């Protein structure tokens, strides 16, 4: 087994990597002194992957919306019970999540780490989909969909995505709808599983105070005993997405006291991966910190006017085929808020961001990255997620130091523009 080590002097940590014969990549990050161990097995498959070439076929076909998430639920079903029950026997927590681009199965424990790890690998690579199980799951998932429908913060965000994008599947709810979920069958689950749950399309990340050699050997041994079909290429089909905005404004009413808003900027600069994509992600985070972070005049003005509160957030989602910035929160006057933000960005386009702001923001992001490493699970998830896009998440401080003021102002001028803006709000009844 070929094990390579990457040491990161800026954080005094190492990550060990290997690719197993089955195609699975394993990343192990030993963390000295930690009581918890964490393992996450992730696939490059999410709700966006609704059209792809099925096994044994040549043309791409669609599957019902929400099936990736449905599959995630169903993978826990086994003839002997639910896979998460065994984790409980070891005092471990087990969970899973589906996003637009990834599905992940994970556990966290302070004891029986090797048992938990072994079980994680076993249950994910041993699907048991049945017609009865599928029918029973539908009820639970319908409740989950309803639960999210009642969350105004989810609604305002989803409506924003629908405003930004004409066709791209990111505009659809990850869990689908009651109707689409009703179309999920055992056969369709098999198709999705066979396509996306190939080890070569997956990554396993383990973190904790363990012996790397021993852990890697255990994983290697266990995967070697399994039989996998020869890896086949995964061909996904995404609809052609125009650069323009689909719908500039969306307003709905719901049972809320304070209005919610989401202002988004669609990224035109797409088609990146690896280092280039990572740079763009870090650069955009730096940009958002400088223009609307807490230490920006704009943020303080909006806060002083009572137009935003401590719950206001800005973030950038950067993927190889699409990207968008979201500014989201609650506001007593979303229209006025939007006006002030757009006006300020307009003005900044003329003046540019100052060197002082740039340096201060860069310093802040460096420190905040270090703080984020206290999140054992989130760090592991970021490592796994970034892996599929060729991004080494722990190189964040290195990428930061490479960025220049010119980069920042270029990004400001290309990205925060009114032409690619959509606005969504949820108002009281």
């Amino acid at each position, binding site marked *: 087994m070929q094990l390579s080590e990457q040491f990161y002097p800026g954080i005094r940590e190492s990550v060990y990597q290997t690719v197993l014969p089955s195609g699975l990549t394993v990343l192990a990050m030993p963390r000295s002194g930690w009581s918890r161990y964490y393992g996450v097995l992730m696939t490059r498959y999410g709700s966006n992957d609704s059209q792809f070439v099925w096994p044994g076929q040549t043309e791409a076909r669609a599957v019902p919306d929400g099936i990736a998430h449905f599959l995630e639920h169903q993978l826990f079903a086994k003839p002997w019970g639910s896979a998460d029950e065994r984790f409980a026997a070891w005092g471990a927590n087990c969970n899973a999540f589906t996003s637009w681009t990834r599905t992940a199965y994970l556990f966290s424990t302070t004891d029986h780490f090797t048992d938990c790890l072994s079980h994680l690998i076993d249950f994910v690579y041993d699907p048991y989909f049945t017609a009865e199980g599928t029918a029973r799951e539908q009820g639970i998932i319908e*409740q989950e969909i*309803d639960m999210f429908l009642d969350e105004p913060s989810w609604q305002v965000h989803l409506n924003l995505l629908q405003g930004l994008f004409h066709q791209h599947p990111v505009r659809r709810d990850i869990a689908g709808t009651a109707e689409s979920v009703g179309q999920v069958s055992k056969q369709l689950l098999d198709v999705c599983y066979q396509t996306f749950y190939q080890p070569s399309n997956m990554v396993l990340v383990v973190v904790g105070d363990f012996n790397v050699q021993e852990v890697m050997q255990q994983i290697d041994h266990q995967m070697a005993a399994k039989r996998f079909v020869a890896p086949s290429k995964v061909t996904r089909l995404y609809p052609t997405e125009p650069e323009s905005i689909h719908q500039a404004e969306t307003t709905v009413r719901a*049972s809320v006291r*304070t209005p919610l808003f989401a202002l988004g900027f669609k990224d035109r600069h797409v088609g990146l991966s690896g280092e280039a994509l990572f740079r763009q992600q870090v650069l955009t985070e730096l940009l958002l910190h400088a223009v609307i*972070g807490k230490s920006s005049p704009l943020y*303080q003005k909006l806060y002083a006017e*009572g137009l935003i509160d401590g*719950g206001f957030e800005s973030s950038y989602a950067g993927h190889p085929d699409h990207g968008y910035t979201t500014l989201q929160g609650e506001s007593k006057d979303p229209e006025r808020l939007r006006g002030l933000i757009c006006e300020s960005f307009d003005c900044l386009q003329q003046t540019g961001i100052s060197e002082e702001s740039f340096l201060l923001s860069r*310093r802040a992001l460096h420190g905040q990255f270090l*703080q984020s490493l206290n999140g054992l699970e989130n760090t592991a998830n970021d490592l796994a997620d970034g892996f599929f896009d060729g991004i080494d998440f722990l190189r964040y401080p290195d990428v930061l130091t490479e960025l220049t003021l010119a980069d920042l102002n270029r990004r400001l001028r290309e990205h925060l523009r009114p032409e690619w803006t959509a606005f969504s709000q949820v108002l009281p009844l």
Partner: protein
Amino acid sequence: MASFQRLTTEHGLAVFVRPTIQFKTTTVQMFIDRPFADDYSLFALLPHVLKRGNAAYPDSLALERRFDQLYGATFDVTTHRLAERHVVELQLELADQSLLTDSEQLFSAALDTLAGIVIRPLIQDGAFNRDYLEQEKEAQIRAIESVYNDKAEYAHQRCLQEMFAGDPFSRLAIGEVEQVAAITAVDLWQLYQSVLQQANFQLFISGNVQPEQVVELCARAFDRPLGTNRQAAEPSRLPTVRPTREVQEEQPVAQGKLVLAYRTGIGRHDALFLPLLVYNGLFGGYGHSKLFQNVRERASLAYDCSSDLIATKGVVLVEAGISSADLDAARAIIDQQLAAMCRREWSDEEWDKTLLALQNGLRGLADRPTRLALTHFDRLVNGQDTSEEELIAGIQQVTHEQVLTVARQLQLDTAYFLRGTTEDEENSQCN
């Protein structure tokens, strides 16, 4: 395992230090606590006004730029209710300065900035800045109202409001709208003065630090006595016995929220407290628990159905998101689980899983510096001096008979249901 060393500065400030190199950060938490008094909204508002500006950094922009300069130090203010105490927590998290190449003494600078926020306020016309006050009052009111937006949180609060009506425990730690609206700059300034005199101040610090050095830096930063006239804390009061209350409300939401509050009569110093923890774990605390398995897994009635323990009140709270048409079915299943617990119907496997999960949670605290500090502080407030190891050992000693005794003490106090009026009736499933 993780523990704090207690030291005191020359001005009498209690400082709890946990030296560790496990993290890439140093965390500083200042806890200020006082009784949950009638002027609680002022106390909840105070830290928000303090953080808007002080003598060294007179406005938020200046203070936030200062935090940026301190390598993006994260500053947060939270309000808690712990036992009968109202607590304001000021938390500062910063990168470990040994990972940075800058020459500034990051940790001492951060402590100084924090101290400035707490004890060197911006004084204008003998009180707080009026603009800051009005803006923070508005923000506070919105925060209180936004509890309404999160339906699960709303239902939770409403149930507690009904159960503890007339008792300070029914109050939201962040305040009450009318009370907040009436606050004047002078009121708040006077409250601040009394807090400096009478509240309890404690500092918790974790990270790559040396205790002796820390206490010296704290003495320099917090260079005056605090809370010299504090009063002893009241012991926690358990809810009184009374007939069950049924409360229902309606809102145009797609999913109903059920909250059931049970009295146990068991306080934190009670011999049955640890058995109560085990009971809650078995009943609804984990994925393997009776509630999750029966309401969600077997009956598919809810995405989530669980129970939580309000330790200071000995109250077990069951919460579930269900379709309104399934209310009776869900309550029937929940009642069946309660009855099963009263008949000692749990397997050795369920028992072992619960103990392990409790152990896992306690052991894992060492990995979460700010949560660990809050937990230790919580124990101090409750007059307990136990470590995680002692708790784990105590839990191992809990017997099945003790848990059975606990089970038979549960009494339904308040049943609250938020009925959804925009649901598709066909979506419900009754098994």
